[in-house]
């Protein structure tokens, strides 16, 4: 363990006045015993309780505390992003003040330093959910694994340690949608998962409703993958084809079957014709929307993981600067008259 690593601990606060003092003192003790240079970054996400007053008191008692108060409530991920953008450490740790334990932080910092990537905390004792929710969750995670190419694990939390190079990559992503649990995975670099147990403070538990989770899932997919749009394209083309075939069937019936009801043919042809066009239009639009999504994305196409150059000892390839003739090969065909 290198005590000279500079460490930043980012803690988003949201109505946490009752636990902030105890938490900051604990973080100061645990981190201070392992590292000489660190900062505790408290990001106040529009708290309306006495968080500000409590923090002012802490600022005069504990060294290395920084306080950022956002102008209104923006959401936990945005608050954490603000903290990460302002953090100076070689390793940046984010945590949930309501339930994440502090004593394991030095271990994930060391893991992060070794890998040079991101260490994600996996909470093993999350609240048990209904079987239905679990099922849907699994399907969603599998879908993400296939379509987004990221390995979302069940129980992944906001406790994570990021190396400076992965933070620098994150800083280049200027997108509005910031679901850090997935965004950090999409940066690349090496990912490790650290299972731990949640320790809720002051009986505070964070409960996310099913609706919120579904909304987040949909936002995530819409922002990151074109696959659903491709499905729409495929369905549109399929619909168009089917309508075309149906149109053919209508004509066939009209020409071969006796006793077709008056008006049925024209009505059916009109319907299938309109649906054919609608499907085609949907197909084309979905492709263009997909392209717009790709162009509007404000993140780099790639991040460099490592750069290395040749370093071969050159022997005796230094040419003398003497020449034996005053003309070169090419100019022998030039004539001057």
């Amino acid at each position, binding site marked *: 363990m290198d005590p*000279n690593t*500079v460490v930043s601990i980012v803690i988003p606060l949201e109505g946490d006045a009752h636990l902030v003092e105890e938490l900051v003192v604990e973080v100061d003790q645990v981190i201070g015993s392992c590292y*000489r*240079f660190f*900062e505790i970054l408290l990001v106040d996400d529009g708290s309306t309780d006495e968080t500000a007053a409590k923090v002012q008191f802490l600022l005069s008692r504990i060294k290395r505390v*920084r306080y950022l108060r956002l102008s209104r409530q923006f959401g936990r991920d945005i608050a954490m992003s603000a903290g990460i*953008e*302002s953090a*100076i*450490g*070689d390793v940046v740790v984010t945590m949930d003040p309501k339930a994440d334990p502090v004593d394991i932080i030095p271990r994930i910092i060391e893991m992060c330093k070794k890998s040079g990537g991101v260490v994600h905390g996996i909470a093993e004792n999350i609240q048990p959910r209904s079987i239905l929710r679990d099922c849907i969750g699994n399907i969603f995670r599998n879908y993400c694994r296939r379509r987004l190419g990221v390995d979302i694990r069940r129980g992944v939390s906001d406790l994570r340690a990021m190396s400076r190079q992965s933070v*620098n990559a994150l*800083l*280049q992503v200027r997108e509005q949608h910031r679901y850090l649990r997935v965004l950090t995975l999409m940066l690349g670099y090496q990912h490790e998962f650290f299972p731990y147990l949640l320790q809720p403070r002051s009986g505070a538990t964070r409960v996310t409703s099913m609706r919120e989770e579904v909304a987040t899932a949909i936002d995530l997919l819409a922002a990151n993958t074109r696959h659903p749009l491709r499905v729409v394209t495929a369905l549109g083309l399929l619909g168009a084809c089917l309508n075309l075939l149906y149109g053919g069937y209508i004509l066939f019936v009209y020409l071969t079957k006796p006793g077709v009801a008056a008006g049925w043919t024209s009505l059916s042809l009109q319907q299938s014709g309109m649906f054919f066009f609608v499907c085609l239009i949907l197909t084309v639009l979905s492709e263009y929307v997909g392209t717009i999504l790709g162009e509007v994305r404000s993140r780099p196409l790639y991040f460099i993981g490592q750069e290395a150059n040749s370093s071969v000892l050159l022997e005796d390839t230094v040419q003398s600067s003497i020449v034996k003739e005053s003309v070169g090969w090419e100019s022998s065909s030039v004539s001057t008259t």
Partner: protein
Amino acid sequence: MNHPKNNQIIIAGGGFFGCSIAMMLHRRGWHPIVVEEELGLLTRASRVNQARVHGGYHYPRSLMTAYRSRHNYQRFRQVYRNAIVDQFTKVYAIGNYFSKVTANQFEVFMKRVGAPLREASGSTQRLFNTALTEKIWIAEECAFDCALLRDGLRNELEQAGIEVRVGTVVESVHPYSSGALARLSDGSELACKFVFNATYAGLNRLTSASGLPLIPLKHELTEMALIELPEELEGISVTMMCGPFFSFMPYPSLDLTTLSHVRYTPHAHWYENDETGAVNPYKRLGFAAKTSNFELMLADSSRYVPALRNAVYCDSLWAVKTLLPLSDSDDGRPILFQHDSKLPALIHVMGGKIDNIFDVEDEVERWVGNAIT
């Protein structure tokens, strides 16, 4: 007690301001005596600073301060040209996050003030982390060698025949028939027309010992790191504005570079006024635990200029920086020039920027004028 002279003026404090004021008074026919606590001149605040001659780039939100600063810059360069060091590239940069000013605002403002900004070369631009830096420019600003400044002033004082008492303190000032009576720590009592209190952080030592009301001041315990720049940064100085402010500049008298950061340079601050009472700030400086914040300064500044990682830490300069509480609310750094409310013959002078000395001369002219011969 020596016989009262009509044109004797005592100057408490042998820093840049104290010595310069002595010369101003001498030129107007007065007989100044400089009294300095340390054994040499210009040893405290005049020596421990970033040695920057302000070019007006530091106040992108206060037009008058910036304009005045630029004006003083030209004059300072001219008057103290022997001590000026300008053989380096001065780069100003605006950060992307948390900046109080945008690149565009900065450019427009500097054009208005007359402070030149040029496009930086590709190699200079590559030194910066583009994700965190909005824009960079080459500016016109220089540094001064405080040792040469000190020697220059000392010679001037010698040639003018001005008496300088080192290792001595003006302990108290009292009303007297000629104007004021100054009691010094060497036991002497000098009658004079005026006493200039140019002791910077120690302003209130004099007021409290003389039974006068304290001047409200704010003190900061500041650290400036002294480093050796890596090869890629040789000859370059960077100032990052305007939220995440940090700066590294050459420090000619030691042939090193100073690194200063708005968040990590001040270690602590305290106020001094009639309620809190006077505390000798130099004693506090002596007793304060001095654990360097260099690693933190480096961690933040190297996010913007990665090459700084290879800088070598040599030492830190510690000082008490004194500010007027009114500059808490705005960017301006005015000079205090105040006749004491109870004892008008005592004049307090306190300024935070060396290149503002010319403003002091205007005040000396107005309030003290020429000696009556």
